[in-house]
């Protein structure tokens, strides 16, 4: 498997810069993982019982602001221990190492980024580390692929990751599992960097699986509560379904293209027939992997449940980085996707449906984190619409801005939950600290969080000049532009012409944008505006979180507000340099994007573009105005007094009963088949009955037959002897 770029390695201009230290990038978090992991194991022997069933739980909960979690289940437990336990004995060094390695990684990434800006890069920089799998035809090296796309992801992962690590220092400060938490978080960043820097699909897959593992570990971080452990398992199992698709795609690549190298596949994909079965199959199976990891229909159900983990984890893994891996993968494999218009249409259609579907659920959720979770699913749908229609830059752009504003929203909600939990803890109340019906009027108590979360809300709603406006608009404009004169418009999906599909996708995108504005405004109104519903006794205890938590929020607030300047559209060329990200990513995806648009840049006339932008702005403003007009935070009652929802609201609140449907359609039949056919039929019947007991029976039967020869009568033996002698003599005689 020859890597086409390998030959340039020696002469590559980046080899002379700090970029040659790129291998250090993943190693830094790995080092942090090793140190924190060792400290966690050392500490576990002394602090807290290792057995989670005794004691650990009450520590996790009873320590005030450390264990801000498991709200529905709080009530079921006895909180006898309300003392304030001392911080973990290694908390100091962990607070230094955990975020420290991320700061170092971010600084290194920035240095490499500026080095990349400084040189003329004709080819991606490929660094071969060691020979990984030399097996027969497959000669796989562990390589790092450094190009503008992976660099963008590295900047997002290390930058947002660093801020979230710092936030975690405050959020998790009193948790007895403090070092374990940072060990997992560092390990996650390590695998995430492997994912984005991996130079071949198998290496990418290693990162892909690794982040899945860390996601599982962190969702179930407070595993002593069954609901949390179950949520972790659900995420892990649902992701396995997607991984099956990824694996099949890799097998197909190797069988048809003869290589698993990312650059090699991109190179060979060019020679595939346009719209052929091979490219379509590879692309669709890859996308199956994406639906698992990036929570798209039909595999999205794990992401809302993943909110059982600590809130910074939700921000880092389940909003900003890991769940966007699918979008990254589609952009990475854009060479294959651009050869398969049907697969592209599928991606865009599934993305639009997910965006719409999740947004409707988000309208009626009461748990602040659940609102954000469905919002994430919805926004991921947008990203897939972007990369699906071949607007890879727009998809990655939305990925980046979404990382900023969604991380901000999650961390902001974390800071709200932190305050709520602290207030409830001070008064020994076990009410739900995540339910928006128990909040309200928090703007007076936490003004910084309030301002910053409004910035993020305006960004996600698409108010002009905030980051989300640019990226979301770019995606919608790209969809509109491709309804004519693109390979997509000429293809068809399930008999529907491609341009019709794209119009539907565009329409769903607009409706989802409207609902996004509504549910985000609803969340803000119920959380921060109106009267406070927390409770008389709790109110004085509501306060802003410490600076270690609000600091990262401020940085993210700046990014969420101004992130749009990464890629200013030509229409608004007056406010800054046009298309920064577009030029930056052009060497990676430019050619593939052009293939979808038949070689022409997807241009809309200025007037069309103005109409589109105007529509988008109108929709965002309308959504916010509608929410402000219709929703009356003053009329809301606390959770314990709230009546049950009815009609369509009940359906939405229960997420269309999709989980129940999956349970009845897939889980229960699987369990029934496992129990009755596989266990009682196959295991007990065939394996135990036929093989285990059957072989014993067979041996006994042979033994019985042998024993029958042993009569003990001398006469029999004599006869046998005689017959034997005669046989031998006869054989010698008549030979």
């Amino acid at each position, binding site marked *: 498997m020859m890597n086409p770029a390998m030959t340039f390695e020696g002469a590559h201009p980046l080899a002379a810069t700090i970029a040659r230290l790129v291998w250090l990038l993943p190693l830094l978090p790995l080092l942090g993982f090793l140190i924190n992991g060792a400290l966690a194991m050392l500490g576990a022997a002394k602090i807290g019982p290792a057995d989670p069933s005794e004691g650990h739980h009450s520590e996790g909960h009873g320590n005030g602001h450390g264990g801000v979690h498991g709200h529905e289940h709080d009530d079921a437990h006895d909180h006898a221990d309300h003392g304030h336990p001392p911080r973990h004995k290694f908390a100091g060094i962990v607070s230094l190492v955990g975020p420290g390695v991320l700061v170092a990684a971010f600084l290194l990434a920035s240095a490499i980024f500026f080095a990349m800006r400084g040189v003329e890069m004709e080819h991606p920089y490929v660094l071969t580390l060691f020979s990984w799998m030399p097996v027969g035809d497959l000669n796989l090296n562990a390589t790092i692929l450094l190009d503008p796309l992976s660099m963008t992801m590295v900047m997002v992962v290390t930058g947002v990751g660093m801020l979230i690590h710092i936030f975690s220092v405050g959020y998790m400060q009193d948790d007895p599992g403090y070092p374990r938490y940072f060990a997992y978080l560092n390990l996650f960043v390590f695998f995430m960097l492997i994912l984005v820097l991996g130079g071949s699909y198998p290496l990418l897959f290693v990162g892909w699986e690794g982040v899945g593992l860390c996601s599982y570990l962190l969702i179930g971080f407070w595993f002593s509560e069954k609901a949390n452990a179950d949520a972790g398992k659900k995420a892990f199992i649902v992701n396995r379904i997607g991984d099956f698709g990824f694996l099949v795609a890799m097998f197909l690549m190797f069988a048809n293209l003869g290589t698993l190298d990312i650059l090699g596949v991109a190179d060979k994909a060019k020679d595939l027939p346009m719209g052929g079965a091979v490219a379509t199959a590879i692309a669709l199976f890859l996308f199956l992997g994406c639906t698992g990891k990036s929570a798209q229909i039909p595999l999205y159900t794990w992401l809302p449940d993943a909110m059982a983990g600590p809130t910074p984890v939700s921000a880092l893994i389940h909003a900003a980085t890991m769940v966007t891996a699918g979008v990254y993968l589609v952009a990475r494999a854009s060479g294959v996707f651009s050869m398969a218009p049907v697969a592209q249409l599928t991606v865009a259609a599934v993305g639009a449906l997910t965006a719409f579907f999740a947004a409707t659920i988000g309208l009626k959720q009461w748990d602040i984190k659940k609102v954000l979770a469905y919002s994430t699913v919805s926004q991921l749908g947008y990203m897939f619409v972007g990369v699906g229609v071949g607007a890879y830059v727009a998809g990655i752009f939305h990925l980046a801005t979404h990382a900023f504003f969604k991380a901000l929203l999650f961390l902001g909600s974390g800071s709200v939950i932190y305050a709520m939990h602290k207030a409830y803890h001070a008064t020994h109340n076990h009410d739900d600290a995540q339910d928006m019906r128990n909040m309200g009027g928090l703007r007076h108590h936490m003004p910084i969080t309030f301002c910053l979360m409004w910035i993020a809300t305006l960004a996600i709603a698409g108010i002009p000049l905030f980051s989300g406006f640019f990226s979301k608009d770019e995606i919608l404009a790209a969809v509109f532009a491709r309804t004519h004169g693109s390979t997509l418009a000429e293809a068809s999906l399930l008999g529907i012409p491609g341009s019709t599909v794209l119009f539907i996708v565009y329409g769903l995108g607009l409706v989802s944008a409207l609902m996004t504005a509504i549910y985000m405004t609803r969340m803000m109104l119920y959380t921060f505006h109106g009267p406070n519903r927390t409770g008389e006794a709790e109110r004085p205890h509501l306060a802003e979180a410490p600076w270690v938590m609000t600091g990262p929020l401020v940085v993210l607030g700046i990014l969420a507000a101004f992130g749009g300047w990464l890629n200013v559209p030509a229409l608004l060329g007056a406010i800054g340099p046009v298309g920064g990200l577009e030029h930056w990513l052009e060497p990676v995806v430019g050619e593939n994007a052009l293939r979808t648009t038949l070689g022409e840049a997807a241009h809309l006339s200025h007037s069309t573009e103005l109409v589109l932008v105007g529509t988008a702005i109108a929709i965002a403003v309308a959504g916010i105005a509608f929410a402000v007009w219709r929703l009356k935070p003053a009329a809301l009652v606390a959770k314990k007094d709230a009546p049950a929802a009815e009609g369509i609201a009940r359906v939405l609140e229960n997420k269309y009963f999709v989980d129940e449907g999956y349970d009845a359609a897939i889980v229960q039949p699987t369990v029934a088949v496992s129990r009755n056919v596989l266990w009682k039929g196959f295991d007990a019947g065939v394996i135990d009955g036929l093989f285990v007991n059957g072989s014993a029976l067979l041996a006994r039967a042979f033994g019985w037959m*042998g*024993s*029958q*020869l*042993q*009569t*003990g*009568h*001398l*006469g029999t033996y*004599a*006869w046998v002897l*005689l017959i034997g002698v005669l046989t031998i003599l006869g054989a010698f005689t008549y030979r």
Partner: protein
Amino acid sequence: MLAEALALSAVLFAIGVIGVLTRRNAIIIFMCVELMLNAVNLSFVALSTLYGASGQVFVVFTMTVAAAEAAVGLAIIIAIFRHVKTVNLQNINLLKG
């Protein structure tokens, strides 16, 4: 002369074999075994006219071994009789599997 001697030897041997196979009394079987031994002795002696005296030497060996065997065998039969009060081999099947 040789042919007759060998024929007699074969007849004696066959009688011994049939006795061993058909009789049930241990003593009689024992005697039949002796008969077989002596049939072989007869053929040794007869064939020594052709192949020299070594056949006759073997007969002496055989008779010595047969005497020892008779002593041991009879002792075993007496021991069995003391144990199970019979020498009928039909009733003695301790080796049955």
